[in-house]
């Protein structure tokens, strides 16, 4: 798949079909990748596809000027489609290099499984439905779902539905119940318990805005949280202000969030943000029968209204 990608990317650049290639290259730490954004065809040799391609590269389409060949997993491709719906990206300007995704490895889960820091592990590989970890000459196998991100376990469309070049055989959803365990737990709490839970979690927020800045659904030129007149929330990391920020952000990405899980992964304070975004994703689906980023011709959910929605919505 990697060889094919490099070849396709090179051809796209050589034939002048795109100005930019956005993909992944090996990161500077073990088990990481990093976005590669380049115009230079000699760079495409560095492109990789592996179980550590965490980022949703659709984010970079918002700021980049010109035609782009972009590597996309299922969730990323939906973010691209969502940006097309919002007129932030023109379909003809992107060449989607589709990765049929089999799930991305969550290093925090691997650390918990192994009882070791990622630095201490020698190798992590994916083989079929297993994740294999090597440490000190010892080899341990885990069923893949135990080591993949929660959002990958809930992913409905791991193979991009909207693409130009498909880089491999389509993959199927994993559909593992663990995906929503955290959310189910929250739902069983009383409102008071839930309030306490989010108060504790959001007390750790440092307002770095990594959640917002990795998110392709967050494309406002000026975020409400930075407004000073009126000042919706203080730019001070108090839990109350942090809560306002997260609630409003969540409402703003409703109908745009594709459950790529990047907000939660990027959070240095380990706040389980996906418990908010995924719940919103499901509410949107239930109320409006709308799945984000599935149909590039569809109008953005929150910009139009249909008569028959009324019954479901105002109840």
């Amino acid at each position: 798949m990697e060889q094919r990608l490099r070849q396709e990317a090179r051809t796209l650049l050589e034939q002048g079909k795109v100005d930019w290639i956005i993909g992944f290259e090996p990161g500077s730490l073990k088990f990481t990748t990093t976005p590669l954004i380049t115009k230079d065809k000699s760079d495409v040799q560095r492109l990789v596809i592996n179980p550590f391609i965490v980022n949703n590269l659709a984010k970079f389409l918002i700021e980049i000027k010109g035609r782009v060949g972009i590597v996309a997993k299922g969730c990323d491709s939906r973010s691209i489609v969502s940006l097309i719906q919002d007129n932030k990206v023109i379909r003809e300007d992107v060449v989607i290099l589709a990765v049929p995704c089999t799930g991305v490895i969550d290093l925090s889960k691997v650390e918990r499984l192994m009882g070791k820091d990622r630095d201490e592990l020698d190798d992590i590989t994916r083989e079929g439905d297993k994740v294999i970890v090597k440490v000190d000459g010892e080899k341990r196998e885990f069923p893949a779902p135990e080591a993949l991100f929660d959002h990958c376990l809930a992913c409905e469309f791991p193979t991009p539905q909207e693409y130009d070049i498909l880089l491999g055989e389509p993959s199927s959803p994993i559909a593992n119940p663990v995906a929503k365990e955290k959310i189910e737990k929250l739902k069983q709490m009383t409102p008071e318990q839930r309030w306490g839970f989010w108060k504790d979690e959001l007390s750790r927020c440092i307002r770095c805005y990594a959640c917002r800045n990795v998110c392709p659904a967050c494309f406002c030129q000026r975020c409400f949280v930075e407004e000073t007149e009126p000042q919706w929330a203080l730019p001070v990391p108090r839990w109350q202000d942090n809560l306002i920020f997260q609630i409003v952000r969540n409402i703003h990405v409703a109908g745009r969030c594709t459950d790529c899980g990047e907000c939660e992964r990027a959070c240095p304070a380990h706040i389980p943000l996906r418990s908010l975004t995924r719940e919103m994703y499901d509410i949107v689906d239930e109320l409006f029968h709308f799945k984000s980023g599935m149909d590039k011709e569809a109008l953005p959910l929150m910009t139009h209204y249909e008569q028959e929605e009324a019954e479901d919505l105002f109840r």
Partner: protein
Amino acid sequence: MSNKKVSKKDITKLLSQWSQQFTVLVPSKESGVAEMAEWDGKDTSFLDWYRNTVVPPKASFLPPMEEMFHFQKDKEGYRIELPPNEHKQLIFSIRPCDARALAIIDANFKDLYQDPYYLSKRKSAVLVGLGCTNPSQSCFCTSLGISPAESTDVDLMLTDIGDQFLVEEITDKGKELIAKTSGLKEATKDDETKAKEAKEAASQRITRKINTEGIIDKLLASFDDKDYWEKIAAKCISCGVCTLLCPTCYCFDINDELVRQEGTRFRSLDSCSFPVYTKMPMENPRQEKWRRVRQKVCHKFGFFPMSFNVIACTGCGRCIRLCPVNWDITQTLASLPVKAEVGK
């Protein structure tokens, strides 16, 4: 000067003694993120898992958010109420990189200005260092003249020598504390040898390097190369992870919360990664991302050493490890496009 030692199983006793006098802070994951938090009186499990905290210990001196004062308007005018400002913190097992970071912040908050909020915490604090024996792959402290297991920026320095810690008295403050502490034994020659070996081994484990030779000149020579900075900045998402969690970054913002006739003035950390950081009524000199990335690099490795004669980086590696896109400062420094001749 003879050094002391303390058995690992006696750490609880040691911390209990110090708790009588100080608010003892230890590495903790209790809140959900690794940080220095008040010791609960029994837990020493951090001795097993601790490599370094996510939140740097600067948070104990320059918190992410602090109340500067409360104000109230009445008939006579404004009444100002200051928050309690008595601190006596003892930070147990701070890493040499983070201890140096405090010394770097001192240049601004203690020497250039005298910041009362910072100094009230800093002056009364005792720093007990713990050498790294297992540094992370993102660490590059040795390139900045810091040893992972040695420090002159702490009051006491601990080195892991098996089932005991060697305790070195670094400052008079440390010496005084030890004089009042019971349960320590005299270190033997053998202990000293073990500690020396552990320190050397730790230094060897740091494999990530940067070259700081002529760094100011190199940065100044590369400053106007827009193409370079655009390329370097391309994948940055302009979040505040690398700055807010940097042990040496100290930029702050001040905000008032006003409710009718009263309010509170807050100080909180700010970040040069944010476009609003430099936003002014008419324009923003760093609206473009590459200018902000350039600022961050040049401040730490150019402007700060130009003013204070020390690089504002200690190689703790947090910015590399925690970056959502793995933007790596060491790669940037290694790829500077020096156009002018260096050293003139």
